[in-house]
């Protein structure tokens, strides 16, 4: 019974993905591209080590972003502001990182802490506004995103940037003690070639730790219990002693703190600085990954990898002269399709569970009668 439940819950994201691919195929057909050809190209890339590294490189920050969103989702709290939180956190962390000189691990720790604190503060504004003034967190986090973009533009142009030969504004390069080494040995030790132009980010380990901590926090601690029951049934949570305001504020802080870590992988890894062309959009895509992975640490990891693969595949399409943006369309459709699919399959699963329990109860009754 447990296994069939697992299969059923897998059916929802799978059918959503299939549906989205179908929509993508129709779009491709309309513009005169053979979808089988395009999807074939997307699959053909998979085995070489550069693709693997590229996929993971993309998946790591996406995963962290998804976790940041998911923790809010656990209690029906929408943090749409991960985008702004991670960007402003990455910029400050980059600036802090270039202005301290410390022993390696400590240096990284300071950078990470700075990112967490700035992210938490930025999200905390929305939390405080909701708790004290009743401001809807969706609107406030959207507005805070744009305020963050402006603040970044201003600070980068006027305060944090360093002289550089390129026109690209940037914080100073982090010293080697502030950089995480890559993890390419993880694949080269199996005889793969060294990836080219991209590396498996050292922060992969950080992402795994975040996933584990998220799991423990949500499913193994009292806080996590209060968090989840607030989402499941606010009335029961309230009666059981959960203070909704405290819960909202702390959850927003934690979500923002995790959001602050989204950019760290790139910051202490590939780029080594916060630049004007620092990767954007991870906050919004993180929402999609969280929905796809059903807020579960493993599910979201799979979702992040899937999105990583798709982004990598997009590059392959481009080389073949097929518009890579078809991938973004598919990703967008997935978000809507997966929510609808979970709604439908969730009902089926619940019905089956009740039926199974009833059947088990019947067995129980018979057993009881025999023993009496």
């Amino acid at each position, binding site marked *: 019974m447990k296994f069939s439940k697992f299969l059923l819950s897998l059916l929802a994201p799978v059918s959503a993905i299939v549906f989205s691919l179908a929509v993508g195929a129709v779009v491709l057909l309309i513009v005169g591209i053979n979808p089988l050809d395009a999807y074939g190209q997307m699959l053909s890339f998979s085995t070489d080590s550069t693709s693997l590294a590229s996929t993971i490189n993309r998946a790591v920050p996406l995963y962290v972003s998804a976790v940041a969103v998911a923790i809010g989702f656990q209690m029906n709290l929408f943090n749409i502001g991960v985008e702004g939180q991670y960007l402003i956190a990455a910029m400050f962390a980059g600036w802090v990182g270039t202005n301290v000189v410390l022993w390696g691990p400590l240096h990284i720790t300071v950078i990470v802490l700075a990112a967490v604190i700035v992210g938490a503060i930025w999200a905390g504004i929305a939390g405080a506004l909701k708790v004290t003034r009743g401001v809807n967190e969706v609107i406030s986090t959207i507005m805070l995103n744009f305020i963050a973009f402006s603040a970044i533009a201003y600070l980068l142009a006027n305060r944090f940037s360093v002289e550089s030969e390129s026109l690209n504004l940037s914080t100073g390069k982090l010293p080697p003690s502030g950089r995480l080494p890559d993890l390419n040995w993880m694949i080269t030790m199996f005889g793969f070639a060294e990836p080219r132009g991209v590396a498996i980010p050292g922060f992969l380990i950080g992402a795994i730790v975040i996933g584990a901590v998220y799991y423990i926090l949500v499913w193994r601690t009292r806080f996590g219990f209060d968090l*989840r029951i607030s989402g499941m049934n606010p009335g029961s949570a309230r009666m059981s*002693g959960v203070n909704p305001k405290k819960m909202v504020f702390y959850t927003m802080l934690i979500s923002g703190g995790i959001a602050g870590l989204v950019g760290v992988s790139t910051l202490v890894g590939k780029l080594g600085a916060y630049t004007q062309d620092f990767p954007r959009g991870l906050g919004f895509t993180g929402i999609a990954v969280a929905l796809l992975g059903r807020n579960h640490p493993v599910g979201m990891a799979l979702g992040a990898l899937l999105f990583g693969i798709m982004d990598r595949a997009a590059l392959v399409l481009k080389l073949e002269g097929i518009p890579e943006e078809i991938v973004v369309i598919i990703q967008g459709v997935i978000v809507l399709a997966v929510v609808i699919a979970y709604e439908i399959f969730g009902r089926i699963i619940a019905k089956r569970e009740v039926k199974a329990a009833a059947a088990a109860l019947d067995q129980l009754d018979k057993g009881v009668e025999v023993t009496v």
Partner: protein
Amino acid sequence: MSENDRAVELVDITKTFPGVIANDKVNLSVALAEIHAIVGENGAGKSTLMNMLYGMLTPDSGEILVRGQVERFHSPKDAIGHGIGMVHQHFMLADNLTVLENIVLGFEPKSGVTIDFKGARETILELGSRYGMSIDPNTLVEKLSVGQRQRVEILKVLFRGASILILDEPTAVLVPQEVDELFDNLKVLRDDGVTLIFISHKLDEVLSVADSITVMRGGKTVTTVLPADVDAGQLAELMVGSELPSPDTTESTVTDQVVLRVENLAYRAPDGRALLDDVSFTIHNGEIIGIAGVEGNGQSELIDALMGVVEPDSGTVELDGTDISGASTMDRHEAGLGIIPEDRHRQGLLLNAPLWENVMLGHQSQVPFARGPFIDMKGTRNATEEVVRRFNVKTPNINVPALALSGGNQQKLIVGKEMLAKPDVLIAAHPTRGIDVGAQAAIWDELREARREGLAVLLISADLDELIGLSDTLLVIFDGKIVASLDPAEVTPEILGSYMTGVAQDVAS
């Protein structure tokens, strides 16, 4: 046919819901241009009957005759088409629209492409002045008092040309002056030829306004009487039932040690209406205090205030001699206050979560469920197994979601988890509502047993058998006030009914 002076006749109407017979061969006959009251306790089947007349439900069997013609209504629209209108107990109004907009919505008179506001305003003012319900059509509904909103609801129905009005507990939300005004309005309407069907359980009001009264009990019509032929006491007896169960003859285990002391608890709604008015009582070790009352008279607010879910405006709550008035809900759980919530689906369970998580609910900060900031999975599972075993919860295992359990077993789980925590005081709200007889008996036994061991219980219930059978003392709550303290061994239906319906009001205890 033409000699028929009946506005509405309901013949042998039966309506069942899964497991409940809401209406059992009900007959009702309402004359044209009369005020016909239908009285009965909660759950007597009044609302179901009226919903069928208004087309929101269809009867399983029986006939509905309107002005002598057999009709079948499939939706309120059909009923409205036959001149029947309903004023719901919970108003169906949009606060941010004007009175005028609310009234014309869905039935807009047009002038060209726009709404004929001018014409509609005149019609409304005309209706208002004719029936003494004048109200400014341009005011926003949110600025109206409850009584004025009710007028809007009535005007809405009249605007659509209804000549038969159903009013579902119209006085439940009104203050006395508003009630008087409403009754004046109703009389004007009646004199103008409108038929009014008026649902209530406030007997003095019914006696003062109705032309005839039909009493319902347990899904059946008991009788139809004229107000001149009965007094409030007789009516209350008809409503509650002629025989009250004799209380169980278990010996008293009440000690003289006060466990819970509630003093002068007061709580007002945002609009200033008193929901709890100077409520005071004490419960001793080994005592069960029962709270009787028609629902909606402050019971929910009392529970919320005791649990710290709402902050009362004044008053103190003392548990074991400690003032817990300012304590959080969690603190109260930890201090030994247990709760069986009145609505188990909304306040007592996590329907989609496994049983072991449900058992944690309310005790998540305590041993054996928590160890420091972490959940103690092993302790939780053991405790859940124990609840299931000791309280005989029928379930295949403790991993199934709560919604897989029958209502009775869900309730046994809730009672069991609260008992396991060995509380000093248990607030038991409708502990056996909507569950099977077996589970009901088991829960009653459990409460008696715990009482013998010294538990203090506040029992809030709509089930008079339960209240009289279990309580050591019966308090009656009416309009947020404790209006009587009665000995369950001596109470008669007449007395209980008259206090519950507000006919008698001695401030006691």
